[in-house]
């Protein structure tokens, strides 16, 4: 029982680093959504969001999913600052 508790706590801590949506959605889906959101936007934050999403996809291709999610979260932060499509 103690073992299960410890594992459950560890998993919850892991989940807590990402939003519910980002945990559920795949990195690919989020990259697609980001690309659509930033269509035609050439601001610095839009470019940075796209670059970080590219890094996320590269990490994902190397099966480093947790890092891919972290880069995608940062990409999404910048996309929000970019203010969407223009």
């Amino acid at each position, binding site marked *: 029982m103690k*073992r299960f508790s*410890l*594992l459950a*706590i*560890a*998993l919850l*801590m*892991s*989940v807590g*680093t*990402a939003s519910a949506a980002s945990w559920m959605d795949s990195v690919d889906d989020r990259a697609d959504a980001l690309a659509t959101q930033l269509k035609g936007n*050439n*601001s*610095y*934050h*839009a*470019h*940075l969001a*796209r*670059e*970080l999403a*590219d*890094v996320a996809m*590269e*990490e994902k291709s190397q099966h480093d*999913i*947790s*890092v*891919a*999610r*972290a*880069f995608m979260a*940062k990409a999404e932060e910048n996309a929000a600052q970019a203010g969407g499509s223009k």
Partner: protein
Amino acid sequence: MKRIVLLAACASITACSGHIASTQVSPLDDVRAMIQKAKDAGAEKCAPALQAKAVAGMYHAAHELDEGSANPASENDDLISSALSNAKKAYAKAKKGCKKPAPEVITLEGVFFETNKADLTASSTATLDRAVKTLQKRPNINVEVAAHTDSRGKASYNLDLSNRRAASVMDYLVAHGVAASRLSSKGYGETQPRADNATVQGRAKNRRVELRIK
């Protein structure tokens, strides 16, 4: 022993939950400094794509460095040198300054005034009516009506005359359906000649009215 293994497993799960490594590490000192220099020079506005590549490259390099021996040193070096190169390019571009595109100017050929007055001649209406149509076709643009004189006479007189002529043209456009909120008028007198004021032809070219799209 079992407890230790279990704790290690738990710690491992938590550690692998994903984070972006700190960029405050010595191998990235030059990249950080150049990115900041480029930012201070205005790269986020003047060279947004290059600056973004540099910053994303720095984060990527930080992550790879954080993984330590898992990556070949050459791969990390490539990431760092690429980020530095992009930051340098962004700085160079920003240092040159943001080049603003030249504003669109429509010269209203055929707009004339009575000598030393702001009254439009009858022959000017055809040109102005075409200008009205153009502005109605492009409802999203605002324009400044800019009037110019040649250099004969006093500069202060020419400035005043050009102000009145610009206002006269604006009044015509408003009277024929262009929203006043889209227009402004300004006289430039003899300050912006586009031809030689020493010749009759040059002076004729300098006396003109333009629509400057904002």
